[in-house]
Structure formats: C-alpha cells, structure tokens
C-alpha cells in the first residue's frame, strides 16, 4: 500500500470517528466517550497529515506548523479549562469564530497558491464560498462573544432601514461572487473578504438576549459549511465529511433550539426580538402592588411544605448561588421534604446549560426534571421556588397573544400552592418582558441577591 493510500485510509477512520462521536453525543451515557473518540480521530488525522505529500514533495515548514500549533495549544487549554462554567456560551462562540477564520484563511491561501495556474471556475466558486461563509462566521461570532461577555449591550442593536441594508449587503456579496466568476478579476477576492466581515457584524447586531445561543448554533453550522467548502478546494474528503456533518446537524440543532423557545428560526434571526421593552403593557404596570417577604418567611413556608419544586434560571448562575441552592435542597430533604428541580429547556443561556451548572454543584441527576414532567409535578407541589428565572415562568407565554414570547412552552409555576420568587429587583428578564406571575396573589417576592437570600433561607430552615 502506498503512503498516500494509507493516509487516505487513516482519514477515513478519522471521518468515521466523527460520525460515531456525534451519535454518542446524543445520549447522556455515551456523550463523554463520543467526545473522546472524536478527539482520538482528530489526532490520527493531524499526525497522518504530517506524512502527507503535496504537489509531489513532503510538507515544508514543519517547524512553523509545530510552532503555530504550540501557540494555539498554549492559549486554548488554559482558556478552556479555567473559564467559569457560566461563561461557557461565549467560549463556544469564540472557538467557533476562530474556526471560521481558519477556514476562510485556508481558502484564501489555497487560492493564492493556485492563482498562477488559472483555476477552473468551480474552484474559484468553492474558494469564494469558503471565504464568504467563514468570514461571516468569524466576525459574527466575535460580536456574539462581545454581547455575551457584556463588552457591548446584550440587547438587539437596531437602526432605521437595518433589514434593507443587510439585504443589500447580502445581495452585494452574491453579485460580487458572480462578477469574480465571470470576469476572473480575482483581486476582488479582498473586497469580498471585507464585505463578508461587515456582513457578519451587521447580521448579528439586531439579535440579542436569549436568542444569541441560537445564533451561535447557526454560526457553528456556517463554520462547518465553510470547512466543507475548503475541503472541495483542497480535494479532501475528510474536510468535506466533517464540515458537512457539522453544517447539516448544526442547522437542525438550530431549529430544535428555536423550537424550544416556541419560535421559528426566521423570527429569531430577523425580528430584533425584545428590543422594544413592553411598549404595550409597560406603563402603569410598575404601580401595581406586589407581596414581598423576608428570607425567614420563605424558610417557614418551605419548612412546612411536603413537596418543593425549585425553578432555577440564569440569575442563579450569575449570583454563583448554585451551591447554596443545593445546600437548601439537601437541608429540606433531610426534613423529609421532596425536592425537585424543574429545568426549562432554555434555562441558562443555552439549552442544557442549567443542567451543567447544577451538576457542577453536585445536584443529583435524578432530581432534575424536564419541562413536561415538571409541569405535572407542579400541580401537587406546595411551593414553587423561582430562583433567577423569569421569562421561563412567565404566564404571558400562555395567555397574552400580543406578548413576544407567546407560544413558548413555560414551566407553570403558578400551578403550585405557593410561589416564592427570588429576584434582585422588579426589572424584566432577559427577553425584556413584564412578568404577570410577580403580581399573582400566590406569589411572595423576596428581593435581594440570590446568593445572600438563599444563604439566609438555609440558615433559617436549619434553625426552625
């Protein structure tokens, strides 16, 4: 067997591991194994590539390749290891962005490389698509990162004629591609690069709040497609398979995620959701009375309950209160009270994010309930304890047809006998919408930082 055939065979093994990995990631038991398998497959592919011959000779610049890899590893490992779990979404965004940037650079470099030999039209097309999609993913992810990291406002950024301008930018990109293909004016590649960069930013700016994770999933899928395009240019089945896998599954995943919020993907992408903060019912709403209580009141209510359902949201993670919450759960259990955690699919900032955060705090996996299960349990619950959640328990999603979140499945906290709502202030949640549950007669509000409040409640429960 020749060296080239052997390497191609190893690439095939590698591509197979990627498929197995994605399959493994779909089940809780085999997910970690799946990720490990993909990592091994990736290592095989990278090592094999060192022995590959391009244009009839061995790879040049092996030292440079190793240096660049070392730089990448030195930056990536500590970043990935030590960033707090709450910052996970922006981390995924940034690693996705650099992937898009890499795909774009690979396409450009290959184009510069083959430039002299007058490439066939379809080769040019592959390059242009790789550059366009990869760069949009790069700059888009950078903005998504800035939004989640709160380097800029997380709310949608809008300006007059935004959609028209974005449409023009998109159309200009396509026209430019056609011009380059027809005229062979390859210098215009750099114009396309700049245009794609601006397009990525303009596309992401009007998307904000809870929609950013859906956007990251979409950009993840884009990067996959850019990698596939590079694969066509380089003639690599491995890149085509891996890129297309991510591209196709990413688009489906994106749709699943927007479905979990009860919205369509186009609504997520183009409606600048949440930019108008309750223009409809906002006025005068603040004046309505709410019932507020002390942590001690909450402790009494909890101690005399027999079933408690805890509904955590992103605010819990912001306050770093997941450990205290687990302590409260254990304390109540030791009094013979049944405790469950009701996890909304989009609690936290990404689907599944809350499960990760609670697992980190050692909350037993068996106590976590998904939406439907939680809603049937809530009917017999004495207390629903809402910690740092807001939009995911907002009854407007069921009742108010004018509400922007109408149709989103919610956790029916109002079914419980009593609702304890831990909240920092009366400010609306991530989506910027007023919450009727706050004014429900069953509800007692406990104002303050979630961690402080929970610590006080734990102390009071212990004392009682």
């Amino acid at each position: 067997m020749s060296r080239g055939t052997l390497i191609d065979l190893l690439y095939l093994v590698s591509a197979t591991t990627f498929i197995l990995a994605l399959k493994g990631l779909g089940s809780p038991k085999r997910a970690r194994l799946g990720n490990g398998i993909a990592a091994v497959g990736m290592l095989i592919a990278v090592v094999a590539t060192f022995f590959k011959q391009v244009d009839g000779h061995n790879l040049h610049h092996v030292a440079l390749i190793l240096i660049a890899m070392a730089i990448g590893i030195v930056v990536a490992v500590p970043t990935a290891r030590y960033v707090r779990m709450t910052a996970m979404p922006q981390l995924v965004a940034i690693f996705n962005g650099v992937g898009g940037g890499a795909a774009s650079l690979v396409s450009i470099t290959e184009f510069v490389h083959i430039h002299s030999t007058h490439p066939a039209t379809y080769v040019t097309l592959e390059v242009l698509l790789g550059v366009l999609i990869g760069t949009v993913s790069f700059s888009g992810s950078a903005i998504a990162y800035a939004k989640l990291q709160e380097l800029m406002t997380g709310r949608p950024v809008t300006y007059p004629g935004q959609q028209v301008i974005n449409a023009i930018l998109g159309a200009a990109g396509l026209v430019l591609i056609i011009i380059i293909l027809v005229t062979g004016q390859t210098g215009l590649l750099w114009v396309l690069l700049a245009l794609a960069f601006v397009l990525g930013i303009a596309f992401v700016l009007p998307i904000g709040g809870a929609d950013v994770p859906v956007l990251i999933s979409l950009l993840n899928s884009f990067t996959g497609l850019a990698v596939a395009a590079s694969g066509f240019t380089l003639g690599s089945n491995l890149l085509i398979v891996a890129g297309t896998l991510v591209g196709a599954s990413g688009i489906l995943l994106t749709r699943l995620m927007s479905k979990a919020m009860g919205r369509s993907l186009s609504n997520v992408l183009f409606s600048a959701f949440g930019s108008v903060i309750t223009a409809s019912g906002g006025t005068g709403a603040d004046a309505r009375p709410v019932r507020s209580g002390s942590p001690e009141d909450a402790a009494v209510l909890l101690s005399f309950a027999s079933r408690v359902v805890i509904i955590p949201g992103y605010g819990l993670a912001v306050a770093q209160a997941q450990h205290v919450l687990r302590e409260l759960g254990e304390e109540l259990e030791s009094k013979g009270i049944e405790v469950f955690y009701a996890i909304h699919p989009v609690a936290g900032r990404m689907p599944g994010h809350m499960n990760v955060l609670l697992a980190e705090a050692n909350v037993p996996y068996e106590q976590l309930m998904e939406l439907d299960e939680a809603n049937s349990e809530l009917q017999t619950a004495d207390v629903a304890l809402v910690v740092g959640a807001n939009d995911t328990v907002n009854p407007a999603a069921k009742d108010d047809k004018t509400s922007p979140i109408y149709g989103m499945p919610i956790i029916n906290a109002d079914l419980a006998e009593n609702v304890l709502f831990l909240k920092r202030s009366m400010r609306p949640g991530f989506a910027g919408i007023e919450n009727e549950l706050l004014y429900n007669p069953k509800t007692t509000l406990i104002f303050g930082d979630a961690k402080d409040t929970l610590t006080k409640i734990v102390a009071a429960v212990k004392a009682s």
Partner: protein
Amino acid sequence: MGNALLQYATVLMLTIFVGIEIIAKVPSILHTPLMSGSNAIHGVILVGAMLVLGSSNTTLETVLGFLAVILATLNVVGGFVVTDRMLEMFKAKPRTTAAKKDEVAS
C-alpha cells in the same frame, strides 16, 4: 477532474443526510454539549491549514497559513477541552442526598 468533483459532491450529499439523521433524537439537555462537540469537529480545518502552510511557496502564503494553523488549533483544542469539561458534569453522582433521606425515613 470532473470525476473528482462528482465524487466530492456524492460525499457531500450523503453526509448531509447522515448529519441530519444522527441529530434527530437528541434530548434537549445535551444540546449545548452537542453544539460544543460539533464545534470541535469542524476544527478538522487544522488538517487543511497544515496542508496550505506545508505547501506554501511565497511569504504571503506562509503568513496566512501560519495564522490559519494557530486559529485552527485553538478551535480543535479549545473545542474538545470545553466539551469534555461540560460532559464531566453529567457523570452519575454518588447519591449522598438520597442516602441521607433514607436515614431520616427509617
């Protein structure tokens, strides 16, 4: 030349269906790890980056290729480490709380 293109297009089409098929039944709690895991997989662009840097003839190509290898390595390594860290948390925990509950009940 045309044959190669056809072969790549075949691979593309088949992979699209595989990609959709294997994702169809994923529980929502695994959406984030799945996104992160597939993020790591598209880091395979590292192979492409190595090839363009390894075959570069001009300074421009070398510089672009060098940057591409750095970015791609960030994608691969960061992607896998983050995903592993997430999934580490899904391990079944020893049921300390449940044990306590049993004590109280008995």
